[in-house]
């Protein structure tokens, strides 16, 4: 019997935090950057808030030879350094008291025997079998290896408790790889056990797009091809690649951000209202949007996509090196640090509306936003003399750094003449809510332990995303010669203007 088979728990009604089943959380790649900077602090913050299950244990698995105590020290230091709330030492001690560390190679059966023993020991101490959540926070080449080994060790299924696997991005580096990985993962786990992380979906402002669209009557009547001229989705960063050259030079901007985060934003923007907000109802609607985007034909790719690489420039008033001079980047690298696409969603609601997606490193500033530009009014009775101009209304949903919504409107300039200039009506989340947004990983880890999959990517979504990006990746790889440059700290390459249809222009970053 599962929780779903029972009458609702009468004690849970009215509680903000719903109960979570006792869980052993196993982090593979426990000494890696992601685990130390994000996962361990996220788990700590859940503990601090009292949001972890009543019984909870943490097990780290990694290749390094460490004792339990040595890993406990690493975990404590990571939490003290990176937690968003100052560590309460008594909570920290409680969290780490029973922490286990399993040392071993991910392809070695002995690692999983040791893991099984640790899990059994913790279950015995609890007096009951506890749910298992395996978090794969490793290099992508180990995902299939770990999943296979969990299956072979008999750890992937249980008749008594829920077993779940959380898989980090990137989920494959091509459509073929993603399909292969899906096949392998689904041969061990059921789809309902798999939680593919796209941490963008854990951000409050991304989730708020659903509330914005489906809880407000004023936008939905305009949300279609009759009123919307074009949409721009921007994910710009002012920083370079830092110490991520090893990963980034193989991935590039398209794989790093467009194939996952930006297409997810597009689906949330374009999806039809779901029947319910249950995981599959939402994901069914999202995947329909992806299916409505045509696979780019080879002869279309040059017209609908642009890539570029940053050269030397200035950032924050300081000179900065170009991508090829970054540490760890091969001097002849053709990896794109900027990617822009023009996509169309071929369905009744969106036919003919261009969706411009752009992302890049070392741009003028850090911003992630969706700008929806409405069609202009059909007739202007005002004189334009002396006006700054009546521009089409633009609705901007900003995900970071200033999370909010703004709407540009034409307003009369005070004076005796009817002169118009655009003004902004702005809403900032920080002004209207008392609560601090939790880190995306806190929400996602809790959801995975609870089995709530709405904010995770389903197998068909991942493959549909790759179907759109794969031909572009392939063509760019085949054409190494054409790679425009843009100055670091700039708005990006001038060549990106070629993507825009007549009358459209990029919003300033």
């Amino acid at each position, binding site marked *: 019997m599962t*929780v779903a088979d029972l009458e609702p728990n*009468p004690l849970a009604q009215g*509680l903000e935090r719903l109960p979570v089943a006792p869980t052993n959380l196993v982090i593979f790649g426990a000494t890696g950057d992601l685990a130390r900077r994000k996962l361990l602090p996220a788990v700590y913050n859940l503990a601090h808030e009292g949001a972890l299950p009543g019984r909870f244990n943490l097990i780290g698995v990694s290749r390094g030879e460490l004792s339990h105590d040595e890993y406990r020290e690493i975990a404590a230091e990571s939490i003290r350094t990176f937690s968003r709330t100052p560590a309460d030492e008594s909570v920290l001690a409680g969290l780490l008291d029973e922490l286990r560390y399993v040392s071993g190679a991910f392809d070695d059966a002995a690692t999983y025997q040791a893991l099984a023993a640790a899990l059994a020991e913790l279950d015995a101490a609890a007096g009951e079998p506890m749910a298992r959540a395996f978090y794969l926070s490793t290099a992508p080449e180990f995902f299939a290896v770990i999943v296979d080994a969990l299956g072979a060790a008999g750890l992937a299924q249980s008749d008594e408790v829920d077993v779940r696997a959380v898989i980090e991005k990137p989920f494959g580096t091509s459509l073929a790889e993603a399909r292969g990985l899906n096949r392998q993962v689904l041969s061990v786990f059921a789809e309902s056990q798999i939680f593919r992380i796209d941490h963008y979906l854990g951000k409050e402002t991304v989730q708020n797009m659903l509330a914005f669209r489906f809880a407000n009557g004023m936008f939905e009547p305009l949300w279609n091809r009759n009123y919307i001229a074009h949409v721009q989705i921007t994910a710009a960063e002012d920083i370079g690649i830092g110490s991520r050259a090893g990963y980034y030079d193989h991935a590039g901007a398209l794989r790093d951000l467009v194939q996952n985060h930006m297409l997810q934003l597009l689906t949330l923007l374009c999806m039809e209202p779901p029947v319910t907000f249950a995981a599959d109802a939402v994901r069914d609607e999202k995947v329909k949007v992806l299916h409505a985007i045509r696979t780019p034909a080879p002869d279309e790719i040059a017209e609908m996509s642009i890539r570029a690489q940053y050269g030397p420039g200035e950032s924050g008033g300081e000179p900065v090196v170009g991508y090829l001079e970054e540490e760890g980047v091969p001097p002849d690298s053709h990896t794109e640090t900027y990617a822009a696409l023009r996509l169309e969603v071929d369905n009744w609601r969106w036919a003919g509306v261009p969706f411009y997606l752009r992302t890049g490193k070392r741009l003028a500033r850090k911003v992630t936003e969706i700008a929806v530009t409405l069609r202009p009014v059909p007739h202007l009775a005002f004189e334009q003399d002396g006006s700054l101009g009546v521009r089409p209304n633009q609705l901007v949903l900003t995900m970071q750094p200033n999370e909010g919504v703004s709407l540009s409107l034409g307003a009369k300039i005070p004076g005796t003449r009817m002169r118009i200039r655009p003004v902004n009506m702005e809403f900032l989340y920080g*002004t209207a809510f008392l609560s601090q947004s939790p880190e995306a990983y806190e929400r996602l880890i809790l959801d995975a332990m609870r089995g709530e999959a709405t904010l995770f990517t389903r197998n068909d979504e991942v493959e549909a995303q790759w179907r759109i990006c794969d031909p572009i990746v392939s063509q760019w790889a085949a054409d190494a010669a054409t790679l425009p440059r843009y100055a670091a700290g700039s708005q990006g390459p001038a060549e990106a203007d070629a993507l825009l249809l007549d009358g459209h222009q990029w919003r300033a970053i």
Partner: protein
Amino acid sequence: MPAVNDTVWAAQNTTPAAIEAALRELLLERHNESDGYVPARVLNLICIVERQWSGEIANRLRRVGRYHPSRTIVCAVTEGRRTIDAVASIAADATPAAGQHVLTHETVTLDLGPGHLDHLGTIVDPLVVTDLTTVVWAPHGHWQAVDALRGLSQCVLLDSLEDPDVAGALRRAQALLDQRYVVDLAWLRSTPWRERIATVFNAPTQRHRLAEIAALRIRNVAESGAAALLLCGWLTSRLGWPLGQLTRDGHGRAIGAMGAVEVALESVHQDVPGLGGITIGFRDGSELSLDRGPGGLAAISRDGHGGERRWKLLGASRGEGGILGEGIRQSLLRDPTYRDALNAAAGMLT
């Protein structure tokens, strides 16, 4: 909130209209200084206090951190005063850098007399930000002022622990709840306990044990009886157990799904107000205890045959500032279980 800079206006023998005009000027002044200053617009808090204790209340409000009200109107009452003096300020906790936003919060302190309280609505109305939820808090018991603000406020914040007359405190909360939403800090003190108890019975294998509960012992600081009664009222109302009146020493009997459930409220000594622990006994002799401890609640499960398991339910203490902040946050939410719990708690004392 530790403000790094304030814009201040003050006047003696003034009027609400003059104060409202001054607030508009102060906001404009702040905006002209930098458009990075953005006024918070979440809720208004009207706080009615004795003048001599207003500093203590200001200190408590400073400790609520990010849960600070957008506009706080402190009505400081001095015996014999017939005129209104006012100080208005806009505080920011940082100076905005280029491209950054810094939230500002407004505070208006009105020095007034007891004679103003019956007409407080017309004094304060021009000063609240329209369309925001308005919360009233009268920690020193100026209930006529709370009543005068009935039409203006949507929520009353109170702490039943602060009233030595527990029955009276619960009856007052019931009466206020008929007019507006009530956030009782005594109820919020039980939130972690309620969450943990709900979790214990959430697993499919444990749900049937709700019907097997035979005893309930709730431990609380002597002055925190209201918190224990509300926790008990929550359990009995959620489970549909009819519960009669408690004896003077805190004992009673509820009718559970499988027969009588013995209820006992017990006093404990601890450094902080509120609940100290709860023990849930089952018909097979087993029991589960949760007790306050460093870093969370200490759980002990005993199986009735001498077997025992101990573990910890993690969670940091919120402190009094955190509980007040949580009260302010909860005034924007609605807990559908509070009314039933309150009625059940009040029913135990009548």
